[in-house]
Structures are given as structure tokens and as C-alpha cells.
């Protein structure tokens, strides 16, 4: 009974997803590398220097994409968590498990590149700026998800517990962001105003767009590969995984 929801039901089958991911992976990796190389080379070598910050601003071509992905991965995890709780879809949990470490890594990268940029610009590696602080809290939230996931041995309850935590976290993220913003303006009035930076030039903005898109594709590829590994591990006793291993060997 092929209907328009068939793709959704198929998503319940890890085996089906494994095949799809196998087909998409080369395409994803190829286009990700193409966009990333284009965006970063353009940004680092050819874009004009900033009139205020000189060349040190160029780290945004890495910093901004990682920060983008780091923040949106948590939202994706929460959506997948809702899918786990509502439809008990195995693949949604595989997704949450696979992307949580990626999200944490990108959050760390965003913080690290921010610190590297902060030294020449603000004169300090770490400033208790609202954005930095809320990214740090996001990193803690990722660690919480990873820790809870590995602490519960039973696969089903582990999936649901992590899903609940992701949803609780996503409800809290706006509150945390708002309160941290408020706290910062209270303690440290207007030292750095992001909003008052001059509007970006086109030849800075385009390479940035390319690297953001490239990093999203790269994230998708990475997530797919990790999901495939997780699927193989979870389904290691099934017939199709055994056959697959036989094929690869022979």
C-alpha cells in the first residue's frame, strides 16, 4: 500500500536507511568538501580584510559555521527525541546517539576558534560574554546527553531517557540564552556590541555562506557514517548484517 507516508514508515527500518546512506554518502562528502574548500580558500585568501580587525576576522569562516551547526544539532536532537517518544522509531534514537558527540565537538570548536579570535580582538582568550557563556552551557548540555546515554545499559529505556532529557534541554535553551543575555548586560554594559558591526560586504558574506552550507553537508555525511556504524552494532545479530559482512569479506 504505497502512500505518501511510506517514506516515513520506511525510516523505521535501519536496514533501509543503511542502504540509502550508502548511496548518498559519496555525494554528501564530495559536495561538502567542494563547498568547504571553496568557501574557506575564498574567505582566507581572497576576501578583503576587515577595516577594523584586519586579517584576524578571517577565523569567522570556520567559527561561524561550527557555531551554526553546534546550535542546530541540539534542536535536531530534540526533534528526534520527540520522534523516539511518540513513534518509538529506532532510527531516531540512532540519530540522537550518533550526533550528540558531533554536536559537542562542534560546540567545542566554536568556543576554541572564538577564544583564538578573542585574543587579538578583545585582548583575552576568554570573556564572560553572553554568547560565549551560553555556548559553554550548550556544551554542558551535550555532555549531559552523552553521559546519560552511556549510563543506562538497557537500549530502549536509554533511548527514551535521552529523548526526555533532550526535550527538557530544548525547552531550557531559550530561557538560558535570555537569562545569560540579561546577566551580561547587567554586569558588563555594552563592551562588545555585535549588533553594531558594519553590515557585511558581499565578498565576505558569500564565502561565509559557502562554508556554512559546506559544514552542514559535512555534518550530514558524518552523522550518516556514524549512524551506519551504530546500526551495524545494534543489528549485529541479524541476518542482513551477517550477509553484508560476508559480502565485504568475500
Amino acid at each position: 500500500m504505497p502512500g505518501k507516508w511510506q517514506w516515513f514508515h520506511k525510516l523505521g527500518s535501519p536496514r533501509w536507511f543503511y542502504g540509502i546512506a550508502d548511496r548518498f554518502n559519496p555525494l554528501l562528502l564530495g559536495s561538502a568538501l567542494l563547498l568547504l574548500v571553496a568557501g574557506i580558500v575564498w574567505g582566507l585568501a581572497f576576501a578583503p580584510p576587515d577595516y577594523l580587525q584586519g586579517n584576524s576576522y578571517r577565523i569567522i569562516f570556520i567559527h561561524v559555521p561550527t557555531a551554526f551547526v553546534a546550535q542546530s544539532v541540539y534542536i535536531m536532537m530534540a526533534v528526534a527525541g520527540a520522534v523516539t517518544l511518540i513513534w518509538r522509531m529506532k532510527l531516531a534514537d540512532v540519530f540522537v546517539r550518533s550526533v550528540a558527540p558531533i554536536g559537542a565537538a562542534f560546540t567545542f570548536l566554536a568556543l576554541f576558534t572564538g577564544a583564538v579570535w578573542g585574543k587579538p580582538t578583545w585582548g583575552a582568550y576568554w570573556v564572560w560574554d553572553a554568547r560565549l557563556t551560553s555556548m559553554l552551557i550548550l556544551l554542558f548540555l551535550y555532555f549531559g546527553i552523552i553521559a546519560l546515554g552511556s549510563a543506562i545499559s538497557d537500549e530502549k529505556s536509554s533511548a527514551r531517557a535521552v529523548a526526555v532529557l533532550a526535550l527538557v534541554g530544548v525547552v531550557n535553551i531559550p530561557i538560558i540564552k535570555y537569562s545569560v543575555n540579561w546577566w551580561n548586560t547587567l554586569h558588563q554594559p555594552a563592551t562588545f556590541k555585535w549588533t553594531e558591526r558594519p553590515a557585511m560586504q558581499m565578498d565576505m558574506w558569500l564565502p561565509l555562506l559557502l562554508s556554512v552550507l559546506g559544514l552542514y553537508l559535512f555534518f550530514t555525511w558524518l552523522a550518516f557514517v556514524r549512524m551506519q556504524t551504530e546500526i551495524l552494532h545494534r543489528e549485529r545479530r541479524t541476518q542482513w548484517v551477517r550477509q553484508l559482512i560476508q559480502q565485504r569479506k568475500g
Partner: protein
Amino acid sequence: MNSPVRTVTVQPVKVSLPAAMMAVLRRDLQVSFRQRQDLFNPLLFFVIVVTLFPLGVSPEVSFLQLAGAGVLWVSALLATLLSLDSLFRHDFDDGTLEQLVLQPQPLYMLVLAKVAAHWLVTGLPLILLSPLLGVMVHLDGNSIAILCLTLLVGTPVLSLVGAIGAALTLGLRSGGVLLSLLIIPLYIPVLIFGTGTVAAAADGGSVSGHMALMGAMLVLAVTLAPLAAAASLRISLSNT
């Protein structure tokens, strides 16, 4: 000889929701008061942590006046965190929790009653003790009053949000540390507004806006936290 067959019909006892909540509340309070040492431990911890700051940072009056509200808030937060582990654990170990989940009354409301009992035996004593500690860190009278007010609105949020963590980590080996890891990031907004209100009052500003925001957080926590905690309890119970 045949024994006469008797049919026994058990009439289900109908208990109204408020009565069930009161029963849970009363039982939890009774259990707490019979293990009195458990009541004192978080309070003692609160006092000891506050003592560490003058010793570890500086006993200068100017520093303590500036940092006092924050020190008290952080200590209250840690003390609450410490007490959360026992929120569901005893009931989990002796099977009471399973009975609660099986009740016809919504688990949401029963969890709310349990959290209320937890707050009464941990949050409320912390608030009652904080004026004394406030004097020790040289806060002035007005600041102490505002601090107590923020704790009054803020500590129930700590108990409610903490209940989610306690329910999620129920029955895990390293539950205590994991609980802190999960819950502390979620406590940050309460901490920021709690100490921010006292700072605003010290600067001579109005605190009604800040208090309104804290009240909003409390309303949100009362509405949503028991939902998440109840769901987590069901998950943890299905785990065993």
C-alpha cells in the same frame, strides 16, 4: 469435605485527587521526620559551603557584601542538588514508586505532591537559615529580605527541575554525579535571576520586574517539570 465457596468482591476504594496528593505529601513528610539526620545533612552542607568562601577567597567585608548573595545562592543550589538523590530513591528501592505509578490518579499530580514535600523539608529550612548566614556575610537588612524572597520563589524551581534529573538517574550506579551533571546547566537561569535581583536591590533599583520573571519561571516549572519527571519515572521503572 468441601469448603463453602465464597466470592469476595473487593470494592475499589475511591480516593479523590486532593486526598491522594495529601496522603503522598503527609507520608513523605512523616518518612523525612523519622530519619531526622537526613533532614539536617543538606542544611549542614549549606552552612559549611558558605563558610568556605570567606576562608577560600577573602574575609574582607567589601568582598563579602558584593559576593554574599551569590555565595548563598550557589550554596543553596548545591545543597538542593545533594538532597535530590533521595527524592525518589527510597520509594524506588522498596517498591512504593511502582504503587504510585499504578494509582488511578495522574502521576503528574502525585509527583507534584512529592516535590512539594521535598521542598518543605529542604528548600524551606534553607530559606529560614539564610538570614543568619546573610548577617555572617555582612549583607544589609534590605538585601537579606530580598534574598529570602528570591530563595522563596527560586528554591521550588530547583526542586521541580531537579525532580526530572532524579527521576532520570533513578537506579543508575553513578546516579549522584550524573544527576549534578544533568541538572546544574538547567539551574543557571534561576541562579542568574536570584542573584541579579539582590544586586538590583542593592543598587537601589526596583525588583518587581525581576521577581515577576522568577515567578514566571516558577509557573513554567510547576506546569512542565512534573510532566517530564513523571515520564522519566515510568522510563526508569520499565528499566528494572
